[in-house]
């Protein structure tokens, strides 16, 4: 938006309170316009694709359990350190087995990094946003709760669990070919690397958009 200096008021305009009258005309006009209110509990908002809401651990349809491999990337990347993982290594194979997977949702800042770095799409942030509670315990999610969150979300939202699992969050600017296998799933066009430019590419596009705006 360009800032334009207002023309100076003439004496007549000052005496007749011209600017106050203008303001009053505006409010009077708004009096008869339709309110923009969304009556929340009655009219709920449909979250956008990729909305970062309630945490969930994806339930693997084959095993019926979480597909988490205890790589600890999520716990490491988490800026607010609200993911707690305990695991042990299976004797012989050395495979990691998750003992505990807790998320303290009240400390989460919903940056979505955990879902971004997960190599197996085990943790997702779902579109559910109504989970305020009267105590802290309710929003301390352990593994069972996180899996239940996923079940409830799939049931409520009607999303195809397989298509939703590859969350649209992938590390921005990373070539899809370098992602871990389970993450290389087809996503809508605007969520691909080409659709989500970062860095110099992004800036150049922005400046083109800006230039267009100025010309208009």
């Amino acid at each position, binding site marked *: 938006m360009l800032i334009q200096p207002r023309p100076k008021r003439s004496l007549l305009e000052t005496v007749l309170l011209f600017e*106050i009258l203008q*303001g*009053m005309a*505006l*409010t*009077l006009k*708004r*009096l*008869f*316009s*339709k*309110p*923009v*209110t969304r*009556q929340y509990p009655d009219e709920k908002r449909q979250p956008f694709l990729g909305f970062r809401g309630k945490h969930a651990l994806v339930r693997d349809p084959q095993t019926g359990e979480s597909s988490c491999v205890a790589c600890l990337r999520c716990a490491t990347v988490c800026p607010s350190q609200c993911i707690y993982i305990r695991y042990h290594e299976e004797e012989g194979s050395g495979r990691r087995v998750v003992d505990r997977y807790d998320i303290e949702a009240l400390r989460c800042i919903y940056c979505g990094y955990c879902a971004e770095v997960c190599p197996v799409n085990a943790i997702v942030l779902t579109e559910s946003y109504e989970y305020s509670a009267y105590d802290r315990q309710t929003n301390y999610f352990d593994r069972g709760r996180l899996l239940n969150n996923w079940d409830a979300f799939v049931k409520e939202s009607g999303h195809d669990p397989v298509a939703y699992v590859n969350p649209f969050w992938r590390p921005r600017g990373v070539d899809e070919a370098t992602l871990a296998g389970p993450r290389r799933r087809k996503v809508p066009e605007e969520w691909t690397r080409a659709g989500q430019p970062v860095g110099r590419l992004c800036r150049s596009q922005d400046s083109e958009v800006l230039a267009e705006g100025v010309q208009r």
Partner: protein
Amino acid sequence: MALVVHMLILVGVVLLHVAYATYFERKVIGHMQVRMGPTRVGPLGLLQPIADGIKLFFKEDVIPGCADRTLFYAAPIICLVAAMANLAVLPFASGLVLAKINIGLLFVFAMSSLASYGVVLAGWASNSKFSFLGGLRSMSQVISYEIALGLSLVGVMMMAGSLDLSEIVAAQQQSRFGIYAIPQFLGFFVFVVAMLAETNRAPFDLPEAESELVAGYFTEYSGIRFSLFFMAEYIGMLVMASIATICFLGGWSGPFAVPHVPFFWFAAKIYGIMFFYFWLRATLPRYRYDQLMSLGWKVLIPLALLNIVVTGFVKTIF
């Protein structure tokens, strides 16, 4: 006995009006800000004022530890009594007045100045910086605007030749334009601005400026005492709107007579002025304190004096 019944009816009607003035205000300002206002309690939120009243009545009455208790109790009562006493002298229609006294206008001035004692005492007694600042602001605001308010009505008194409110209306009906707002346009303008300041309404709501002083002089009041202040403020608005109607807009007379409802035009004009109050509140930001003072002393009082001089000349010549 009949007088007591009349009084009770008057108080009941006015309190109902006060309750629904808050509803009207919230609806008007809501829609002007492209919101909806109250919609939840009852159809269209119409029972909201009643719910608010019940809530305020049952709320805890908190009194600050170091408050001056006697004055703290007295302040809201002074405010409310002073505001309500005005109702006695207002003629709502021809002959429909509780106490027809020949100095009605002076009485209204006296009472509305008295109401500001309640405000100042509340600010003093609460022992809180916000209340104290609110009280001080109210004091100086009232001193500057009371003068302009009084002077703006002198023109009306000169034209009507009376201080009796009923007679002012009667004189207006016989005047050339039917209302004094046209010949006394300068007085009317000064009166409207001073009226806003006198009732502590936006854009001159400095004594209760919520963005600076929490709630100004009634910051420390809660529950029923808070609602007494609230009622006093709205009754004050109603009284000032009535004075504007009586002195400038022709009182109960209108373009045609409405059968069986002698106070129809009076009520309609009052609602119009109340709407104007809310309209201004939705439009204008609060004035800065020095702007308020310089507007009062440097613009309104000279204008009102000029109006008196011109009125006097015109009255002598014609």
